[in-house]
């Protein structure tokens, strides 16, 4: 499995709640961690964008973020990333931030999961 498809698999595991029990313990543990990141990330987006929890809970991997949500200018993106650092206990380097990561909810979630797993 390539790194990219592994991340996609984690995202799917996080997004499709209820598809548990693959039998692979390591994969199960990763999926558990990934699953914990999804609601935290949605809560952060909720808080930063001032959206209702119901609206954000409907976000899926393809939901557009930067460039689609007018509130997300550079100051707001900075606030979002700094809040992710605080709540997910990760450090986001300058070079981590690119258009792809901010393009969709799935991209941001993949990134957050990868950072959390890096420890």
């Amino acid at each position: 499995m390539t790194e990219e498809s592994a991340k996609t698999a984690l995202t799917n595991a996080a997004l499709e709640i209820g598809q548990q029990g693959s039998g692979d313990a390591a994969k199960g543990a990763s999926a558990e961690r990934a699953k914990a990141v999804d609601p935290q990330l949605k809560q952060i987006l909720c808080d930063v964008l001032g959206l209702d929890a119901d609206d954000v809970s409907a976000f899926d991997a393809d939901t557009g973020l930067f460039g689609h949500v007018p509130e997300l200018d550079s100051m707001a993106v900075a606030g979002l990333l700094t809040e992710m650092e605080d709540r997910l206990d990760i450090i986001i380097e300058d070079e981590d931030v690119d258009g792809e990561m901010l393009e969709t909810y799935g991209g941001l979630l993949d990134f957050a999961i990868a950072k959390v797993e890096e420890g």
Partner: protein
Amino acid sequence: MIGSWTCERPEGRTSKELAVQITPQVEADEPTLLILPALFDEANKLRRYTIEVMRRLSEAGIGSVLPDFPGMNESMAPLSEQGLTQWREDAEQAAQQFGASHVLTIRGSALFAPQTLPAWHYAPAMGPRILRNMLRAQVLALRETGQQLSIDELGERGAAQGIELAGWQFGPQLFSQLQEAEPLANPAHAIIEQSEVGGAGLWLRAEPDDNADQVAALADIIAAKITAR
């Protein structure tokens, strides 16, 4: 309700600054709360919230005053010439001029709370985190114009010669002080966490907002603490 105060600076310079004061209807020997405004973009995001908290406190018989400090809000003084040490002295002056009995700091203003009065720090923001957020915004904004600079590179520049971040002109003094700033330890000062107020902090929002539940919660917490003292 909207008045002014005169901030004395070294070498005989004075700075006349705006102050919003809300006093209860019944004049008596009520406590007066000095409120120090949040800093930079958070000052804008939290201004309405702060004023609403003052209105609610007034209904509870507590007067409050929210002064501008040199370099903030409507001030004519340039932000680039300010520093945390000077702002702390200014806050002590404001406390005296308005006869304040207590102090409430909002987010970053915990970093220059006067040490002479009991104070509550609402969701205090540490200096390094304030700077990291603003430096990051600047890195992203510069990238859109094709310039690749890192948070560290901009930070070094800010400390050496000052820097403009998200439209705020930091002098080297304020920038370097913020790089290490946290609220001074003081047994008469306590923190009010956002979790006590409930909901998400309004400073997180991309746009300024208001929240009646949070206004009521924060004002009621402060009123209870002042009454208890």
